Structures are given as C-alpha cells and as structure tokens.
C-alpha cells in the first residue's frame, strides 16, 4: 500500500459541489471549523497513490456479460460503464447516456414499448477508439446471441429492432412493457464492438482476459490467485479517477483478511467484509473507519409451499411466532444485522414500513396450532389428519452461524410440539437441483431480491417463476398467489413511480401475511477502511463496494 498524502490543490466540479451542498461555503471561509483544512478534503488534481481492496473471493471473470459472481462486479464497475448507474439513494442517473429516458423527455413512449437513448459524445475506449451507439447495439445483441455464454438475459430478451440513429443516439422496441429494464441496464456494461466483433468466438476472446472498457480504470496486470492491478484512465469522461492504482487483493481466509486489514496491508475490506464476531474489536482499531452498512439481502427460512404441513397458514404463522429472532440477531450475530419484515430493502423507495412487527410468543404460537387442530401426538409432536408437524431444515454446511441458529430454532420449536430436523449440505450440493428444483422442505438462506434498485420480484414470487413446475424463474418456495401474480404483472408494466410504490407496498403486505418465508434478519455488512481514504460511499443498490472507486482519494 502506498498512502500518498501529497495532495495538490485544485477543485474539481464535483468537489466544489460537494463542498457547497455540505455547507462548504462556511468551510471555505472558516476552515478551522472543520476537522481538517478544507483543501485536505479535496481530491488531488491528478491521480495519486494506490488503494488495495481485500477480497475473500478471487475475481476471475472480466467480461461482465459472461456468468460471474459478486466479486467480479467490483472490477467490472471500474473498467466499464453502463448506460446508467444507480446512486446510493436508488436514483438512476446517466452514465454513458446523457439522460435517463422518461415519457416526459420523449425517451420512452407512453406505452413503454419504444425506447430512445441519447449518448455522450466525449467517451473513448481505453485503446483510444471513440465510443458510439454501435457499441450499445452490439452489446445488447451479444447478450441474446445463442452462441454467446451470457449471464442473465432477463429483460434483454424483450428487446427488438435495435436501430442506430446516429453515433450518439439509439432506439429499440420492447416486446412488452418492462419497467425494471432501466435498472437492469444500470448493471449491463457496454463492450467495444471494434474488438469483440472481430473475435472468432467471443466466449474465448483474448479480450476476456485483458478487457478494454470506457471506465475510470484501465486493465493493468494480474497475478492469478493473488491480485489484480488496475491503473487510472487519465481520459475518463466522468469525475475522477483520483488514485493511480486500484488493486484487488485476494485473501481467501476471512481471518487472514481481517488480520491484513488490521496490520495495514489492505486499505479497504471488500466483499465478504469484516465478520460480525470481529466487529467490536475492529471498531476500536486506530486509524480505521468501521461502519455498518445495511444490504438488500434477507436471511430467512424458506418454506416449501407444496409440503402439506406448510399449506396451513396457521402453521406458518405459528412457526414465525416461535422464532426468537432478537436472540438470533443479538447473541448469535453480535447485534450486527437488522430486523426486517419484508424482502424489500429498507433503503428502497418501495419499502413498506407499515407491516406487522414480528413477535416472539411461544404461548400464542401453541394456541394458534391448538385452534387449527394440530394436537400433540404420543411422542409430543403435533399432528393433524395423519400429518405430523415435522419437517427438515437445510442450509450450507460450514456456515456455523446459520447452523447455530438452526439448532436454536429447533429447540424452541420443540417446545410447541414442532419437530424440525436438520439436514445440511455442502454449498455445491445445496445450491444445485436441491434448491433450484425445490427439493428442500425448508431452507435457511440469504436472498437478494432486487436487481439494482428496481422493486420487481417476479423472478421470486410469480407462480410462473417456479422452476420445479417448469416455470422460468427462481420462485423456490413454490409460492403461488393469483393476487400477487396480478400485481407483479401490473408493476412490471407501470412506469409511474408513485403508482409502482403503491403496487409493491401492497405486494409486501400480502407476502408478509402469507409468510412463504419467515424473515430472520436483514444483512448488514461491516465495512472497514483506512482513515484518510475519502470519497468512499456505500451503495446497497450495487453488489460491490467498489462501484464508484473513481471517486476515491487519499485525504
């Protein structure tokens, strides 16, 4: 790590804006009123220093359109640009585009079927070639090319008749209105046509190992199994970059990762973050900033709705009542995660804050089961019409906090005559057909429901998304509610934000009532970085902490 503190003077447009909006006028007049002199909070006029991000998984996929995992996103966000990006507040703002298309500005037709995107004219690829609408067309067509091993194709498969109007304008038609597409496009990085179109097979192109993008950082070098180094793109069209070098360091062991953060070898703990058990100690470290950042992932117990025992709503309610959630959060997870009643992140504009709050009440749970006719059998386990109130719960082996939570829940369930057997599986087995084809009875799992900031959850809750019933999607609980289906379809074709808010709040209400899953807690990541690393802003609407590394600098 080189922490170069030689900050040169010079205010960028963004820095000036930031200063103005945050009471910067006072800061300029009375610098001593701020903790540091005003100039120290300003990015350097040219890229300076290096930031080392520690990751517990190794980034290996550098073509962002190909199947990849979260950790690869950090690299993609730095090398490439999408048409739009999502701010921490969930607002979609232009990136390679000059404006976000709306019905008002004519970018979208009234029926949401015709799209027109205007593009920047000052963007260059890292090799100096100009970025044009042809690149956007090429990218969108590549994703649906049957010969290309594309990542997710949802949304893109609806795009028809792409036309390049000019180098800075592109239009297309959607097969059906699909409001979430804007959000999907914020995670769709545009690739260079002039390089990939020449490749014999884009799946095996040399580009995939040394990508060329338009982003704030250029490909540097890679030591496989150890680190990846990116260098500043001095011709970047946006703000930044303010650091010379961005390094992703792969440290597979979480304890070692934390140790190296403590010893100063890494500047920022990236994906996987600091484990909850180290949170208290991390907070006390000198010259380190450690903060809790709520994420969009929800830990819950998924109930396979086709199991006779779970088809009784009283059972699902009783099971929820019988979970001592607070103890699971406070005692097993060191108080780090947050309580949640819905799949929608609290940071989302579509979050419904009016849902009934969970209560832990064994007596009430038992009464509910009594009333529903579930009476204790000879072995103490309740039964009704020959069905025992017994089921298995599965999660990944080795996830010790989850395993402890399972045992804890198992004990409380036993107190109300419910038998929960634990059958855990290795991750590769758990997330194979067992999960995908809903072969589990119940599963303890952490799920991210949203793509970007869009509230559409058709993939998780629509009855046509049940893969086990030959559907297309990931409705693994095999949840089916015609009312939710109808609302989800309406939400996907509604572009008016206020109307969408009402729709998705209603969906949350119905799902909270139906309880196809029992919420345990909202994931909260422990972010750690060295003091002096400025410009860092957590964004729970992306999958990576490095989504805006262009704005980082040493203060």
């Amino acid at each position: 790590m080189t922490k170069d503190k030689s900050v040169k003077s010079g205010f960028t447009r963004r820095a000036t804006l930031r200063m103005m909006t945050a009471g910067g006028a006072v800061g300029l007049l009375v610098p001593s009123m701020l903790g540091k002199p005003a100039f120290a909070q300003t990015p350097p006029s040219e890229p300076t220093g290096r930031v080392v991000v520690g990751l517990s998984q190794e980034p290996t996929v550098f073509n962002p359109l190909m199947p990849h995992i979260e950790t690869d996103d950090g690299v993609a966000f730095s090398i490439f640009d999408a048409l739009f990006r999502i701010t921490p507040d969930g607002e979609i703002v232009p990136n390679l585009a000059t404006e976000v298309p709306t019905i008002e500005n004519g970018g979208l037709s009234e029926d949401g079927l015709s799209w027109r995107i205007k593009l920047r004219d000052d963007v260059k690829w890292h090799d100096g070639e100009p970025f044009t609408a042809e690149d956007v067309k090429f990218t969108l067509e590549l994703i649906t090319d049957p010969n290309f091993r594309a990542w997710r194709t949802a949304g893109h498969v609806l795009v028809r008749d792409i036309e390049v109007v000019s180098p800075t304008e592109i239009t297309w038609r959607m097969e059906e209105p699909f409001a979430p597409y804007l959000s999907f496009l914020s995670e769709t990085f545009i690739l260079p046509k002039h390089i990939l179109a020449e490749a014999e097979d884009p799946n095996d192109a040399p580009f995939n190992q040394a990508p060329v993008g338009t982003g704030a950082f250029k490909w540097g070098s890679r030591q496989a199994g150890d680190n990846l180094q990116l260098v500043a793109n001095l011709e970047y069209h946006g703000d930044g970059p303010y650091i010379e070098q961005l390094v992703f360091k792969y440290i597979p062991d979480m304890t070692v990762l934390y140790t190296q953060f403590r010893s100063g070898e890494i500047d920022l703990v990236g994906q996987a973050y600091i484990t909850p058990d180290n949170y208290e100690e991390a907070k006390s470290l000198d010259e380190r900033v450690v903060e809790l950042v709520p994420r969009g992932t929800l830990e819950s117990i998924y109930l396979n709705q086709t199991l006779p025992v779970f088809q009784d709503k009283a059972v699902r309610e009783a099971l929820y009542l019988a979970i001592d959630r607070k103890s699971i959060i406070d005692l097993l997870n060191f108080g780090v995660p947050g309580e949640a009643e819905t799949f929608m992140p609290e940071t989302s504009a579509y979050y419904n804050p009016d849902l009934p709050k969970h209560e832990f009440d064994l007596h009430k749970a038992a009464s509910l089961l009594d009333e529903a006719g579930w009476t204790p059998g000879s072995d103490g386990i309740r039964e009704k019409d020959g069905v025992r109130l017994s089921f298995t719960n599965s999660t990944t082996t080795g996830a010790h906090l989850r395993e402890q939570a399972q045992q804890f829940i198992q004990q409380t369930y036993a107190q109300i005559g419910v038998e929960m057997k634990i059958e855990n599986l290795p991750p590769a087995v758990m997330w194979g057909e067992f999960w995908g084809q809903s072969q589990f009875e119940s599963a303890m799992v952490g799920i991210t429901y949203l793509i970007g900031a869009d509230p559409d959850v058709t993939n998780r809750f629509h009855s046509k998304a049940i893969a086990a019933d030959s559907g297309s999607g990931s409705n693994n609980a095999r949840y089916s509610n015609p009312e939710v289906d109808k609302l989800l379809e309406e939400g996907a074709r509604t572009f008016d934000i206020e109307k969408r808010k009402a729709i998705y709040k209603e969906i949350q209400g119905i799902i909270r009532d139906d309880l196809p899953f029992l919420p345990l807690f909202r994931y909260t990541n422990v972010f750690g970085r060295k003091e002096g690393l400025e410009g860092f802003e957590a964004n729970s609407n992306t999958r990576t902490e490095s989504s805006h590394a262009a704005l980082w600098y040493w203060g």
Partner: protein
Amino acid sequence: MAAFLFSRFLQSAILLVIVSIIGFLVLYLMPGGPLSQYALDPGMTQEDIARITEQLGLNRPLYVQYLDWVWSLLQGDWGTSFRDGSPVTQVIARHVPATLLLMGSSTVIAVAVGTWIGVRGATHRYSGFDYIATVGAMIALSIPTFWFGLIGIYIFALRLDWLPAGNMYTIGDGSVLNYLHHLILPSIVLALVHIAIWSRFMRTATLDAISQDFVKTARAKGVSERRVVMKHVVGNALLPMITLAGVQVPSLLTGALVTETVFTWPGMGRLFLDSLGYSDYPVVMGLLMFSALLTIVANLCADIAVALVDPRIRLA
C-alpha cells in the same frame, strides 16, 4: 533395459487412465456442479442456468463428456476453465511458478538440513543430538502442516512481527528481497516434514554405509574422519535417496496444497482448492492429471536411475 522401460511405461499409462476415470467420475457425479454458485443471483433464472449448462455441454451423457475430454487431451487440449474462461494449461501455468518457488526452496532446505541431521545423527549415534533429532522428527511427522503454519504465523508474524503472515510479496514491492522475506516461513513449514523424513532415511543409509568394508579400509588407511564421512559415507548413502526423492517430489505438491492455503500463496495448491470449490471440472481434472503425471514420472525416473546404478534391480 528396453523391456524394463517398456514395462514401466505401460504400467504408467494404465495408471493414468485409471486415475482419469476415477477422477472424472467422482468429480462429475458430485451433485451441484459449477453453475450452482449462480443459484441465488437475483434475476438469474433456472432457464439461464439450463442454457449455460447446455452451452458448456454439461447436459451430455457422462461417458460422452469423458471421451470428448480424453480425445481433446490427446490432441493437447486440456479444456477451458469454467471459472476463468481461459485454457486450463494457461490457468495452471499461471500458478506453477509460485508453487515451484515454494517447492524448490523447501526442497533445498529439506535436503540440506535433512542430510546434515541424518549424517550427523548416524556419525554421532546415541548422542544428545541424535536423540533430539529423533524426537524432533517424530514430532514433525506427527503434527499436521497447517498447524505448524498457524503456529509459525502466530509466533513470527503476529507476536514477533519478523516475517509476513502470508502472500508471496507486498503489493508495490516486487524486489527479490521482498519475495525472499515472504518465502521464509512457508518454505520452512513445508520443509519440516520432509526434513524429518529425509533425516531418518539419511541416518539409516549412513549407518549402512559406515558398516561397509570400504569405509573400514579408508579408516585403516588413515584417511581423516571428515574425509571418510564426506567422500565415502555420504556419497554412498545418497544413492538410496534417489528412490526417496521420487516419492518426495509429488508429496511436496500435496504439502504445498496445505501450506499455500495457510499462507495465501498463489500456487497450484490454492488453485486446486478454489477450483474444487467452484466445481471447475476442467481445471480440477487438469491438476489431477498433472499431479498424477508428476508422481508417475518422478517414480519412473527414480526407478530408471536406480536401475542404471544397480543392474540387479532391472533384472529382478
């Protein structure tokens, strides 16, 4: 000699085929598979997973996949990594230097220190040094490598702060000195077990050599003890070590697997574990075959070397 070589080559080839079949079956029959890592990805549907499965050819019958793999292998194509997207040979080649560096340095340490301890133990039989060496070897052989690694990190990196806790080098400092600094702890840890083995074998071989007539003759002729040991004893005692080296080289690779994990060393051992975790079949199979090949070739070389030295072996 030709018949001996032909027989050894044939045995090796059969062994490789058996290893490949077992490895392939075990790996490909494991539930889950390489695409299970995308199961919780929002927006990625089972349809997407099915499409990619087909594109990768993973939905074909197992024997077709195996024969296809063997056919490609015979043509020099080791396949393409699912995780990385680059040819398996390239993926392995990227990790070979780190492992070679670790194995090389630990081999030098193991052979040098092991030989010295063995010879000194034999020439000073039942001395305090010999007893300490014997007990030390027992301990080194009984305790797992990772434990030594963790203890080493705790003492030398965390408590004393003399050596780095892991990694091959510090980002931003590519000097030879920096590499050497990072190499000390992992290579010593990896060498420990091999020092123990090497020293025990060397002690026995040296004792055997000491009792030979030519050593007695040399002594009778008034050759200095130092010269007797260095020229006559050690030289002859090293001969049986050829076989040991044949076994030790591949086992160094196994040891590196653990050591590389503990010390976050970007070598083949770590690559193997990572690839296994992601069910990256082509890379795991590539490493398996590479390891099998290394074992077979090392043993073959040892057999040939011994046969060359001692004609009785090839006639047996």
